[in-house]
């Protein structure tokens, strides 16, 4: 059977500085990150022949042609699944490359959320995929993702005994790693106690369970594997990749099993394609819109049984020296929230051996997950060439 395994490589990565209050708009941030990714890959921007802008929020394929001087764009796609989009874009890019449609695909995301009109509570209700939430839940006060996701976490705690301290373990691991990253927004260490004492946002989510609101841009280049070997950077293959969607993706409340995510359907496909086992994974970057989402995905991806994600994340397992180093850049919780494209950037760096102070020793195989909107999911397993 035909497979996407090792057909495409991530050959370039780029990020703007992450912050609040950027003077640049989303598309300007995307362009800045895109130029950095091209330079990292050793490509002229005009050599890009495929583009996948992430989300429905900023530059179109046409805008990239106009600004990057692309003379022969052969492929474009738009992936509108929130934070699952970057990893879904890896599947989309690998598919186009493996079938010979194009050679170098730019995947980029940028956003500026500092404007009042673009706060989380207002933002999602402008997105068409949230129309059920906007019509039936927003008017009674279920406004922002923290409130929309919280009942999932409540149910997980009630059914499986997951604890506040286990949520805290995820927050502390991400923060600990962010302190090793010069481009992380959060600069102060936190303890489990700080997490427990942070103010309640939407029970059971405290402030330190919630991801950041960030301005910034990120970009990656995905290239055909035979070409990648002769490019500037160490080769990093996309070995397995898959996307999955939950039942009732339009609203969490309507889902038969509220605690199940689309990633549960995707994960085994990615592992099978890559031909690796969970024990082979050296480092993971897991979409962390909320601490609970990390625990949930660890279960759905089969690192442990359903209901055991809470105990799994305790005792430093997610830290650099633990069994499953997680979110080595600080994640959405402590580096920045750019829809998880920063997770793909970080995994690529780790597998190149460019992880800086957060480098996982001898990292050869890694996993990155995406989790978007109301449960859409994607998984990619990448390996060092």
């Amino acid at each position, binding site marked *: 059977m035909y497979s996407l395994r090792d057909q495409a490589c991530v050959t370039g990565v780029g990020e703007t500085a992450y912050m609040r209050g950027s003077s640049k708009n989303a598309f300007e941030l995307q362009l800045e990150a895109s130029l950095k990714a091209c330079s990292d890959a050793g490509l002229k921007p005009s050599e890009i022949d495929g583009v996948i802008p992430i989300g429905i929020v900023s530059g179109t394929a046409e805008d990239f042609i106009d600004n990057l001087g692309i003379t022969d764009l052969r492929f474009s796609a738009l992936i509108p699944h929130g934070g699952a989009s970057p990893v879904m874009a890896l599947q989309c890019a690998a598919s186009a490359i493996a079938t010979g449609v194009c050679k170098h695909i730019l995947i980029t995301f940028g956003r500026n959320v500092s404007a009042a009109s673009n706060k989380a509570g207002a933002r999602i209700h402008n997105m068409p995929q949230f129309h059920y939430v906007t*019509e039936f839940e927003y008017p*009674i*006060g279920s406004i922002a993702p923290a*409130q929309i996701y919280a009942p999932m976490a*409540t149910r997980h705690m*009630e059914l499986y005994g997951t604890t506040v301290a286990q949520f805290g373990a995820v927050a502390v691991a991400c923060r600990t790693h962010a302190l090793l990253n010069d481009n992380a927004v959060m600069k102060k260490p936190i303890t489990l106690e700080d997490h427990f004492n942070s103010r*309640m946002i939407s029970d059971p989510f405290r402030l330190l369970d919630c991801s950041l609101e960030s301005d910034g841009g990120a970009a990656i280049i995905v290239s055909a594997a035979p070409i990648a070997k002769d490019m500037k950077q160490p080769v990093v293959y996309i070995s397995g990749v898959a996307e999955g969607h939950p039942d009732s993706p*339009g*609203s969490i409340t309507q889902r038969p099993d509220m605690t199940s995510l689309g990633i549960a359907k995707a994960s085994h496909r990615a592992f099978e394609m890559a031909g690796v086992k969970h024990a082979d994974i050296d480092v993971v970057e897991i979409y962390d819109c909320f601490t609970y989402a990390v625990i949930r995905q660890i279960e759905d991806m089969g690192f442990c049984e359903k209901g055991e994600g809470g105990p799994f994340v305790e005792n430093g397992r997610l830290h650099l020296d633990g069994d499953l180093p997680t979110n080595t850049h600080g994640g959405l919780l402590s580096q920045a929230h750019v829809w998880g494209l920063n997770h793909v950037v970080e995994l690529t760096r780790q597998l190149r051996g460019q992880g800086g102070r957060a480098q996982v020793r001898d990292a050869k195989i890694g996993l990155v997950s995406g989790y978007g909107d109301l449960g859409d999911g994607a998984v990619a397993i990448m390996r060092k060439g």
Partner: protein
Amino acid sequence: MTIIEKPLPIPNALSQPYWDAAHQGRLVLQCCASCNTVRHYPRLLCTQCYSDQYTWQESLAKGKIHSWTVAHHAFHVAFKEDLPYTLVTVDLNEGVRAMGVWRSAQQPQIGMPVQGKFLLSEGRADLQFNALASS
């Protein structure tokens, strides 16, 4: 001073009958005219038999608590004076789930029997749930 109102639903052709009934204090659910499967929120097709024919069936608005959250932060300024408020998801006896505002003093629990009711006020119909003494 400008008073910012809570957001109102914007019904479409598919959901208008739901809201029309809600404003009369009745909870109605879409019911497939072909195979009688009840669905919610309103959708064009029945996912069991793909029929696009349906009726609106009145619900007794009884069910059991599925999950909940207590909001402590107002993501919309109009909800500030309601804080803290509790939202519950409820498995209705008809087999679908609804979200509503929790009105009872007691702490919600998974499986707790509840009764839903629309609170009607100045153009609004907000679904609310109260604990139901189990018989």
